[in-house]
């Protein structure tokens, strides 16, 4: 499942860059705070939470966005932080409960780091990523 925003909405945001900017400034602190508390969000700006079993892949010490590394311990814990459950073990388990859980199989492209810190919500609505977002 990838979120599709109706063309008129995208168009509206594209036509009004200043309004988009103002909206982002208002939304960003709220988005950052809420997602940080619930998902440990790192504000990468290109949220794929819904495609990774509502588990933020940026919590992985290797920031893997396509699946677990080969170093997951036998008990499912992280090889780097032994006290932490592997992000992808959780993601895989949780994705089974989601009606759109198959989205975990989608090949995720490389993250555009120039958009880090921007609001992923606004980025989705405006259909933008990378430096045009920041």
């Amino acid at each position, binding site marked *: 499942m990838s979120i599709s925003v109706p063309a008129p909405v995208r168009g509206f945001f594209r036509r009004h860059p200043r309004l988009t900017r103002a909206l982002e400034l208002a939304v960003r602190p709220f988005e950052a705070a809420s997602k940080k508390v619930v998902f440990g969000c790192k504000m990468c700006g290109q949220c794929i939470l819904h495609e990774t079993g509502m588990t933020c892949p940026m919590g992985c*010490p*290797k*920031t*893997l*966005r*396509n*699946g*677990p*590394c*080969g*170093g*997951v*311990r*036998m*008990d*499912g814990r992280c*090889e*780097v932080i032994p006290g932490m459950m*592997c992000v*992808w*073990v959780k993601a*895989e*388990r949780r994705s089974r409960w989601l009606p759109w859980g198959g989205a*975990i*199989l989608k*090949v*995720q*492209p*490389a*993250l555009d*780091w120039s958009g880090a810190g921007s609001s992923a919500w606004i980025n989705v609505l405006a259909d933008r990523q990378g430096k045009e977002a920041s």
Partner: protein
Amino acid sequence: MTRPIAPVLRLEEAFRSGLPVVTCEIATGDGADPDEVLRRVRLVSDHVDAVNVPDNTAGIVHMAAWAAAALLAREGVDPIMHVTCRDRNRMALQSDLLGAAALGVRNILCLTGDHMVHGDHPGAKPVFDLDSLQLVSLATVLRHGRYLSGREIRPAPALFPGATENPFAPPYDFRPLRLQKKVEAGARFIQTQITFNVKRFAAFMERVRDLGLDRTVPILAGVAPVRSARSARYMRERVPGMEVPDAIVRRMEQAGSERARREDEGIRVCVEIIEQLREVRGLAGFHLLPIHWEEAVAEIASRARLTPARASLSAHVEATARDAGSADARRDDREGALLNRHREHRA
């Protein structure tokens, strides 16, 4: 390096022949001595189709993989260069792959990379700009003549990208699916983590066959000889993602501490695992990981009757040529015809 020596059979062609393929990983020198790399590769080169060169394996700094791989290529051995995402961002990765291709290194194994916390520079900055799957995509994009930016490359590097999978680490159900993702991203061959638990490996391969992946991409099962009970315990307890069943640790303990005896037992266990894996359908061959013990490879190859595809192929060709009593002039034609026949067999 004016005259790059072409290997007898490139890894890609070896896979295409449909014959069992053997690869082996060597340790690259812990210094700047090219002879150390060549000494190790000469111990294994007669028994394999291609040799893996690790990239700062276990997070411990060694000679650059592209340099060691280039030394192998010059020696007439087809190298498989490991590329990890740990130390380089997407720009460095692209330039390294182009440079490697220019030095005759085509086969690249795309890995995430062991984290530096386990290595000798735990304070280094982790890069992980890409993950292993995105690295496979990147190699595929380069192969098709574009940079990741979309800019055209002329000429495109003739890369043959491969990937790995570890059937022995959780989440077990997801491992075959992750393999599928890697194949979708463009992986052309697969090498697995070291197999000690054959049962778990067989279960993994069953799922892989259900997904039809064994028919899409050649899969090599990783196998390794254990040298002592101590190293078996070390792998079981200290190497994340490695599964060493207690039975194997016990066998190594029973072999005692006398060197010849424990080493013989280690090779015997390895050969038994190879025999068991031969019963698992869907494998294209074996990938040996002797872990600083390259001397064991010849013994394993002879006891397990492991023959690299290129050796099987030239044996076939010589036999046919002898039967027909023909001259060497037609040898190339025959080799091509044989390759085609094997290809049809496989299809």
